[in-house]
């Protein structure tokens, strides 16, 4: 077993979504917070893929942005290769650490500056981290990267809008790889793409992982994709981890009622005759999460304890689940 490259400890982040001061005073309301991420812990092993799944608003993007430092955590700590990232990095130390991780975004068009040529986009990390590199060397490296992701060096003169969605995501991947990082956070990299294009991108990402020994945090709402990519999986619900575990085990024996529900909701493409179970209810508003277990209004196993007490992650089998029923052995 390899040691973890990334360790996320009791990470929480809340957002202030209060109305403006004047409105608060007039309406006599207090501040309003969203707990987008609450007490999330997991670790990612070197060279593996850790996936986060969850529905819209479950806090996936927030965790991604916390990891790469685009957001500051409210509580908790992120440790990257033994170094805590939370102590506001400065100067050369920061640059050394920063070049080791990268991020790929959901909307490939929005993640590329529309006014920049592809060459300049991909070269940006090189300018930041390879200060000594001259223009020619940089352009050669860009050509190499474009070839690596399945585009041609001639594409470098074009602008992002001249490409299809899948090709744009390839450009974003080339940029992420430019400074030779070890660790890439991928926030729904294929959600905006067609299935056939998604297959290309997923295969590319796997090839690159094998070739360069990359470590991924892979975010998705699509269980089939996650099953395909991940060694380990964390299931998020309303900002909390419902279940974490090794991928195989989690798909074979889902413990948490929410994980089971998600698995049941996967459509039956192979037409085995399995019917999707109708799931009751919808995700409650994160502004007013229910007391106790966040899943209790939709959970068929909920009891009184679930409506009062927030369950913590407890190990069961090869994974860990945050559920009273699992802990009590009721399911």
């Amino acid at each position: 077993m390899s040691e973890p490259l990334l360790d996320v400890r009791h990470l929480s982040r809340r957002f202030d979504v209060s109305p403006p001061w004047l409105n608060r005073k007039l309406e006599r309301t207090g501040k309003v917070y969203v707990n987008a991420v609450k007490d999330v812990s997991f670790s990612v092993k070197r060279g593996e893929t850790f996936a986060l799944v969850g529905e819209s608003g479950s806090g996936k993007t927030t965790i991604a942005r916390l990891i790469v430092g685009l957001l500051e955590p409210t509580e908790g700590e992120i440790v990257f290769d033994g170094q805590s990232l939370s102590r506001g990095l400065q100067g050369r130390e920061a640059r050394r650490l920063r070049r080791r991780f990268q991020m790929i975004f959901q909307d490939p068009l929005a993640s590329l500056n529309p006014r920049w040529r592809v060459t300049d986009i991909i070269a940006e990390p090189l300018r930041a981290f390879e200060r000594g590199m001259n223009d020619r060397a940089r352009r050669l490296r860009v050509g190499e990267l474009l070839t690596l992701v399945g585009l041609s060096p001639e594409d470098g003169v074009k602008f992002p809008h001249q490409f299809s969605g899948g090709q744009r995501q390839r450009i974003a991947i080339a940029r992420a790889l430019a400074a030779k990082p070890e660790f890439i956070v991928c926030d729904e990299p294929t959600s905006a793409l067609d299935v056939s294009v998604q297959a290309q991108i997923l295969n590319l990402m796997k090839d690159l992982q094998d070739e360069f020994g990359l470590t991924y945090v892979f975010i998705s709402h699509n269980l089939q994709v996650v099953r395909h990519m991940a060694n380990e999986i964390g299931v998020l619900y309303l900002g909390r981890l419902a279940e974490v575990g090794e991928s195989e085990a989690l798909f074979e024996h889902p413990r948490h009622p929410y994980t089971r529900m998600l698995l049941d909701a996967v459509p039956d493409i192979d037409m085995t005759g399995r019917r999707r179970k109708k799931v009751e209810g919808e995700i409650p508003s994160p502004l007013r999460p229910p007391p106790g277990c966040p899943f209790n209004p939709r959970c068929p196993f909920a009891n009184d304890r679930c409506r009062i007490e927030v369950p913590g992650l407890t190990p069961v089998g090869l994974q860990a689940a945050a559920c009273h029923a699992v802990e009590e052995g009721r399911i």
Partner: protein
Amino acid sequence: MTEPLLSVRNLAVEFPTRHGILTAVQDISFDIMPGEVLGMVGESGAGKSMTGAAIIGLIEPPGRIARGEIWLRDQRIDNLPPEKMRKIRGRHIGMIFQDPLTSLNPLYRISDQLIETIRTHLPVSRDEARKRAVKLLDDVGIPDASRRIDDYPHQFSGGMRQRVVIALALCAGPELVIADEPTTALDVSVQAQIIEVMKELCAEHGAAIMLVTHDMGVIAEAADRVAVMYAGRLAEIGPVRDVIKDARHPYSQGLMGAIPRLGESLERLVHIPGSMPRLNAVPPGCPFNPRCPKVFDKCRTHRPATSEIEPGRRAACWLYPGVTEA
């Protein structure tokens, strides 16, 4: 043999652009039987929405139907004047779009929008229309419908709004519902509910559905037949089980292989290299030929028409005997 409810014959939709004419939909023919669910899949830009828009007469200018005919039972509807078409929309053909917010007016109560639509198409009193509306909302699974009907759209969650849109599409009892990506904007756990509701209700009302989507899973579950579109053309059309289990057109074969399944893990997916051509630069011969693993000489020069390859199945590929030239 029953008569088809909708017949599309050699439909072509064109957009004049400054770089010449762009053919968004080219020579498409298919039928929808009463009560049938026809799925329509294909990559983004393949022309799925455009086909749907042509049927309901909502192609935005400068786009236009350049060739072909669309028949609703024995009435030709592709050349109707706008006012007549407006009567057909809603009364005979209902619509459900991806984003429920575009179909609901945020300024009006749900009740007003439903009652208004019912009364434009059916000769009923306000009270009766309201009763009908409450019943519909109840049917689409909105709890406490009689009270919530007076809410505004923003007071509903995304999934509930989509239910309201379904109710709106069905309120005048149409025979055909065109649903363009009805679940794409929704969460996985809610998607299943919406598909279920849509299918059950249409079956109850005897309405046929044309279900446009990216998601093969949704098609597998809901559709009776499926049409696969590529570069504005029909690559393949046939019963859903046959196409999924035993696709004939190399593009559909690639598409099916590209879908990650729950049963397998950490293996490579089948993928089709390259990308769909821009519609103003479709290669000569078979439009799929630059990407096709089974391409041979004829494919590069002759364009296959979507032709019957066995009873009930049509494909546009020279691999099958009986395929004619377009």
